């Protein structure tokens, strides 16, 4: 059974005002600009946005996986109450694995080509406690079985290149789940896979989530996946959260012009009135040169409020379909989603349309 996320259970992950700057030859890139969200036990938060929106960097920063020479990370990121960003290197190492497991995007490159699958699985197991080789191997076989790899007993002895892309991704997932993490971060985990395999893997993650109560951060730019797996959605653009809320609120009653644009690109989720936003012209702003106002202003087809050009609209609770006035930050608004979560958006455009 999935635990019901709510105020009773302490959140697995609490991210507060996360900012990441990267030093590049073209100047400092403000890649993540004040991101805040929480993930409860058993909850799945989908982070969506185009490539370059800062999704991947925001999670790599959590686990200290950005190059230290070029990246500056500030803010707070409490994993089960412990701040990941101020941890000692050794503590951070201990947390990677049992605290938070990560599935990377490309199954072709995220496995070491010269070590067997079993070796790469047992390595993670044995890094976090005294486990004998035989026990670790047995557990590796068990894990590969859990992720649905046929003939796991033989698969442990195989090298990554002997497996198909889908099989490799299952191995990567098995590695991330090896230490039964409290938090699973999946970065475009199914993007490289075909639709059938993708569906299998989504099922698998949901099942494992039900069994272990794992909190999940699922990064994707595929809204179909979001609809299938997420409890909550966080829409990222230009390193900022432009809209978040329950999956129903965001997908069915999107407020921010960017979210509406994204949804319009997906025909079966699009509603009649935003069909003209089917594709968004232009490209995201370069993180080295972000606009002063709303990050989406340069591409925005709505431009409903002149303030957007010069001022950053705050992320505020918005009314849902019955158009109650939002923006007052009232977290106990009656129009919160089914899971008791507010629907927020960083825009003034909704107000202009409210009538």
């Amino acid at each position: 059974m999935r635990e019901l996320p709510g105020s009773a259970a302490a959140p697995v992950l609490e991210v507060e005002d996360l900012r990441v700057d990267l030093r590049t030859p073209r100047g400092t890139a403000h890649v993540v600009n004040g991101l805040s969200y929480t993930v409860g036990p058993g909850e799945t938060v989908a982070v969506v946005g185009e490539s370059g929106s800062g999704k991947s960097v925001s999670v790599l920063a959590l686990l200290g996986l950005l190059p230290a020479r070029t990246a500056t990370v500030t803010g707070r990121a409490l994993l089960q109450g412990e701040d990941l960003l101020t941890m000692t290197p050794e503590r951070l190492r201990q947390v990677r694995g049992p605290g938070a497991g990560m599935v990377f995007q490309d199954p072709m490159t995220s496995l070491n080509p010269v070590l067997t699958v079993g070796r790469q699985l047992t390595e993670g197991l044995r890094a976090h406690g005294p486990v004998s080789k035989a026990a670790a191997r047995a557990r590796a076989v068990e894990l590969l079985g859990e992720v649905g790899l046929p003939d796991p007993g033989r698969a442990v002895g195989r090298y990554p290149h002997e497996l198909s892309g889908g099989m490799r991704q299952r191995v990567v997932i098995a590695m991330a789940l090896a230490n039964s993490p409290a938090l699973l971060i999946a970065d475009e985990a199914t993007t490289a896979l075909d639709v059938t395999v993708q569906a299998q893997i989504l099922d698998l993650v949901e099942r494992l989530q039900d069994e272990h109560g794992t909190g999940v951060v699922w990064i994707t730019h595929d809204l179909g996946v979001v609809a299938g797996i997420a409890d909550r959605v966080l829409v990222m653009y230009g390193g900022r959260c432009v809209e978040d809320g329950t999956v129903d609120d965001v997908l069915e009653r999107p407020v921010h012009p960017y979210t509406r644009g994204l949804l319009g690109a997906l025909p079966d989720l699009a509603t009649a009135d935003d069909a003209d936003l089917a594709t968004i012209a232009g490209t995201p702003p370069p993180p080295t040169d972000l606009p002063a106002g709303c990050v989406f202003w340069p591409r925005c087809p709505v431009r409903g409020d002149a303030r957007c050009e010069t001022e950053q609209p705050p992320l505020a609770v918005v009314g849902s379909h019955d158009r109650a006035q939002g923006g007052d930050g009232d977290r106990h608004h009656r129009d919160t989603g089914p899971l008791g979560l507010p629907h927020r958006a960083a825009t003034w455009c909704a107000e202009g349309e409210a009538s």
Partner: protein
Amino acid sequence: MTQLPTPGAAPAAPPPAEPLPTAAPARPRWRETLGLLARNPTAAVSAVVLVLIVLVAVFDETLAPDGPNEQDPSLQLQPPSWAHPFGTDEFGRDVFSRVILGAATSLRVGFLSVAFALVVGTLIGLLAGFYGRWVDDVLMRLMDVLFAFPAVLLAIAIVAIRGAGPANAILAIGIVYVPIFARVTRASVLGVREEVYVRASRSVGASDWRLITRHVLPNAAPPIIVQTSVSLAFAVLAEAALSFLGLGPRRPDPSWGLMLADGRGFIEQAWWYAVFPGLAIVVTVLCFNLLGDGLRDVLDPRQRTLMAGSGR
């Protein structure tokens, strides 16, 4: 944080906007290249030193205090002094003057042999890369055979067959470097050949000659330029080795390699005799290598050229 240095791992940086594929390719912009090079202090200093060395080689007779074979029996094997900053040799000749006069020999052999390798190798690489198929197979297998022989030994063997002397040294060193230029050019051409602008030109009926000279060669040039600088370094080294073995210029012509060979016999009594010609070689070779590295950073970020030293 436990942080492994992870170069190139900046997944956030959005990919630079690709130029429109049908647009004409950006030609190597020479002024910009020179500007970038000037901002790389090592490469800039190397370039300046090389220019100085070339000037010394050109005006050697004006600059050298003494003639190449001016002997003074009373001054045999004198240590460095104000009159003879690099000392004198066993015939009382001024080592400083002979080092200056030797620059011309070294550079001439270096430049001419690399020019030979550049022309022949680039031509072979162009043909192999542009036409592919059997032309490629035949030419590149031939290059492989040539490449299989150790460079110095191949040069020695060529000189042995054709006789000692600067002309044969140039030919020998040139032949040794032909396969390297052929490989670099071929790889570069293969990268350019399938670019959209080449195919576009082909589709409007441009001749092979026009394609090669207007589109392929200019865009395949950067790695070849880098290779030229690096090869010059090794040509100077190879010339020194051949002269040292007595297979280059003949005594009493001033040559750095020959001076080393002679100075070696007096190493216990007169260290300066072998030290200064050697330093001249090191400085020249070092500058060509550093300039090559600088050029590589600017022109060939994908590092397609052979790294310095792999020709040894």
